[in-house]
């Protein structure tokens, strides 16, 4: 931090020394080697917490700062977090937060992630919450620790607290800087209980030295050398690979299976528990060959539900409406409107398709189960395994090594339970690594969804009515931020909760859940309205906005893009979309060539401007924006699950197309500094506008309304035909 922190953190009292006793502490010593921890004890560990620990995200987060960090004899600091690293960069940015608040060099901070025995409880890595939610608790823990260190230094240096200054892991006397003691020396040789009655305030953004600085990825060397270990790279003596019999369709029931031939393969072990049949071998390909010899019969459902009839099916069993936001009176808006525009928008099921399929390795030793899992939610997975296998939670340890992509899909983590179950049953270490087909089959897809918007313009060309119904996607991003006096946004079913049972297979959160659907529908509809009003789409948005953050990102994107009013010439179109996700404001503009003959869209250029509050690691944030834009091309243009009667037809990358190098537009990202807002989400926001920005570009280019995602060549051709006729 800029300057030196000399605030008196007194109120510190009761320094006591006591022997090592705490279980977690001892475990850490064993796992991480030497170093010492400042042991902090209070009657009520939550009493000092300034930020309340509430709700399912927060109520189990420890109040004791020792749960988050440990200062070693060598002055190195270990950061413990239940978050995981799946490429989003938390292992690089979280140490920036800790180093800033504790006042140590960034390079002195190490990090240990996703180990349920060693790390503080955490709900999981999702929702772009690692920085904006967990980061607050981490910073408070560091600030508290620094206060305790200063109180210890006061005793040690025997000077008044007002003269104490910290700087890069050292506490010294302001009047006599050589009179100093390091953090490591203060904690050496003892475990200290100490209580601060007041938590020192967090460093203000103006004083940030480490937050806001681009630092290189900590995982990069591991990942370019092959040293990075994923759950499937764990090798244990005597380990077996398991391949599990799967039904051909969701809803299919096993009616009979002959497992004899599988067991005849040399070295193969077969486990059968009812419908659960697994073939195990020391080599995965041999286990697979054994599985192929099982003759299984299934009763398959005939539902008639496929990717064409799904929308009728879903709308037939309309979930209970919840009003997300409302203002004014819809009837009044209807009366004021001289023009009404009503459209219905659709999007298909979309897969997460991380490059690493779900994998877990489990071993049971002396009654304790250890599971290495590719999961976004190690602590909930621990609870699930303990519950299902009837083990106490402290007899289950989930360790999350590097995760090969998640995007919301690695939360259910069925594979971890399967590996745990087989390890317990066989007494051997067992690895369950899903095939790509299993990965698609058991994916919790982004739900198919429908949005109906009825909106109205008055004679002056202003929007006066906005009646918005979203089915099955969910609430996130549906609330209108345009100024419309009479509006209502109603949510019929979400990606979570009871509406899930209406889908023929699993659905769940997919990068910025609900918001991709909501932003696509809203932003395309905005352009239809602008066209009706005869106003440029950017100007139309700006005339309905008072939110300064949104105006700022739109103007920044327009300036970089070179947005020009008026119809673009020929078959090239300009697209525009904006939105809010995870507290971050984002505006996108794109240039797209439409081939009306083939229906192919060639995305030439995408500009993205983002206000994410205080930025922790600017280059890391840009990587996430680029990743969002690239991944977003997929759901906008091509990605779609085909299915019938519970059978999934897209089970690999031969038919399920994800963006490749040749799709790349020129991508330009702009991050707008905003020191007045704490750090907001970064992993998801930029993806929300990709459907909208490309659909509005096509509308601009050829006047075709793409009312369904993805915008496949076939759908583009048909939409162009509708314009002609």
């Amino acid at each position, binding site marked *: 931090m800029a300057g030196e922190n000399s605030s008196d953190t007194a109120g510190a009292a009761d320094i006591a020394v006591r022997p090592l006793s705490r279980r977690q502490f001892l475990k850490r010593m064993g796992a991480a080697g030497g170093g010492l921890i400042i042991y902090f004890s209070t009657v009520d560990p939550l009493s000092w917490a300034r930020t309340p620990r509430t709700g399912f995200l927060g109520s189990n987060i420890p109040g004791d700062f020792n749960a988050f960090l440990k200062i070693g004899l060598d002055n190195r600091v270990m950061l413990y977090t239940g978050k995981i690293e*799946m*490429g*989003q*960069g938390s292992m690089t940015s979280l140490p920036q937060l800790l180093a800033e608040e504790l006042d140590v060099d960034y390079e002195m901070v190490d990090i240990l992630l996703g180990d349920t025995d060693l790390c503080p409880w955490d709900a999981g890595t999702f929702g772009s919450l690692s920085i904006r939610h967990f980061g607050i608790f981490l910073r408070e823990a560091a600030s508290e620790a620094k206060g305790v260190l200063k109180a210890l230094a006061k005793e040690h240096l025997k000077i008044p607290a007002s003269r104490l200054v910290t700087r890069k892991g050292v506490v010294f006397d302001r009047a006599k800087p050589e009179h100093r003691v390091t953090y490591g020396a203060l904690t050496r040789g003892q475990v200290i209980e100490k209580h601060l009655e007041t938590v020192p305030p967090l460093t203000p953004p103006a004083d940030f030295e480490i937050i806001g600085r681009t630092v*290189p*990825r900590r*995982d*990069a*060397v*591991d*990942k*370019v*050398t*092959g*040293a*990075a*270990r*994923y759950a*499937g*790279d764990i*090798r244990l003596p005597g380990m077996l*690979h398991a391949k599990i019999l799967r039904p051909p369709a969701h809803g299919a029931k096993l009616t009979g299976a002959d497992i004899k031939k599988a067991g005849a393969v040399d070295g193969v072990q077969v486990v059968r528990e009812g419908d659960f049949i697994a073939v195990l071998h*020391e*080599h*995965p*390909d041999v286990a697979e060959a054994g599985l192929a010899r099982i003759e299984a019969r299934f009763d398959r459902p005939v539902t008639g539900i496929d990717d064409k009839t799904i929308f009728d099916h879903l709308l037939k069993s309309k979930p209970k409406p919840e009003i997300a936001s409302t203002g004014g009176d819809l009837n009044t808006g209807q009366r004021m409107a001289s023009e009404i525009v009503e459209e219905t928008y659709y999007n298909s099921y979309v897969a997460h*398709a*991380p*490059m*690493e*399929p779900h994998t877990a390795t489990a071993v049971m030793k002396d009654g304790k189960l250890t599971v290495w899992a590719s999961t976004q939610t190690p602590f909930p997975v621990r609870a699930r395994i303990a519950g299902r296998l009837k083990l106490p939670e402290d007899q289950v340890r989930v360790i999350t090594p*590097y*995760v*090969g*992509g*998640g*995007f919301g899909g690695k939360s259910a983590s069925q594979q971890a339970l399967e590996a745990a179950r087989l390890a317990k049953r066989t007494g051997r270490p067992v690895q369950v*690594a899903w*095939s*790509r087909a299993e990965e698609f089959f058991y994916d919790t897809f982004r739900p198919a969804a429908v949005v109906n918007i009825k909106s109205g313009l008055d004679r002056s060309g202003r929007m006066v009515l906005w009646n918005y119904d979203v089915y099955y996607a969910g609430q996130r991003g549906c609330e209108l931020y345009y100024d419309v006096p009479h509006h209502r946004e109603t949510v019929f079913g979400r990606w979570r909760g009871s509406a899930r049972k209406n889908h023929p297979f699993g659905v769940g959160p997919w990068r910025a859940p609900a918001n991709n659907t909501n932003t696509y529908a809203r932003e395309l509809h905005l352009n239809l309205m602008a066209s009706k009003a005869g106003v440029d789409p950017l100007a139309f948005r700006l005339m309905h906005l008072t939110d300064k953050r949104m105006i700022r990102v739109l103007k920044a994107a327009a300036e970089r893009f070179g947005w020009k009013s008026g119809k673009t010439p020929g078959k090239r179109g300009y697209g525009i979309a904006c939105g809010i996700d995870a507290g971050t404001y984002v505006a996108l503009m794109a240039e797209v060539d439409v081939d009306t003959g083939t229906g192919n869209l060639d995305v030439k250029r995408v500009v993205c401007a983002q206000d994410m509050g205080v930025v922790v690691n600017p*280059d*890391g944030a840009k*990587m996430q924006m*680029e*990743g*969002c*834009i*690239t*991944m977003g091309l997929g759901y906008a243009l091509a990605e779609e699950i085909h299915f019938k009667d519970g059978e999934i037809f897209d089970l*690999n*990358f*031969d038919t399920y197309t*994800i*963006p*490749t*190098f*040749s799709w*790349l537009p020129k*991508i330009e990202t702009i991050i707008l500094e905003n020191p007045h807002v704490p750090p907001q989400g970064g992993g998801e926001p930029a993806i929300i506008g990709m459907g909208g920005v490309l659909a509005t570009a096509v509308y601009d280019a050829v006047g075709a309304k793409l009312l369904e995602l993805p915008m496949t060549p076939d759908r583009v051709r048909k939409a162009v035909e509708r314009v002609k006729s």
Partner: protein
Amino acid sequence: MIETIRFRLNDKPVLIRGDGERLLLWVLRSDLGITGPKYGCGIGACGSCTVLVDGMAVLSCQTPVREIDGSSVTTIEGLATNGSLHPIQKAFIEHGGLQCGYCTPGMILTAYSLLSENPNPSREEIVEGMENNLCRCGAHVRIVRAIETAAREMGGGKK
């Protein structure tokens, strides 16, 4: 049928006895404990399992181990020499050409093969050469930049 297959793996001799039809990916990962090559699709559609056979990129999930008898196999673990990273590895770090990292070994080895054949590729040639390697995180723009930088570092490349 039990066969004996000999090859060099990251500059060390290896002898395998077994079914020559088994795929190189599983022999490397399971029998030999070399986990750099990753399983991503099993049908040769994603490039995660890419290794070098006599210096050229090969999909190990599509290669019976019999076919590499007498060859020299390099995996990502064997690319750095004497503790010094290869220029392609350095360029991936410098440009942040990775996120989750799962596709990265395949990306780097495919780039190696591409630059061996064409030390001076245009951007279009890089895109074409990398087209069959999938990345879900969207690190593509930085991977392209990294390969351009590596080409320059290695003496070729557009100046």
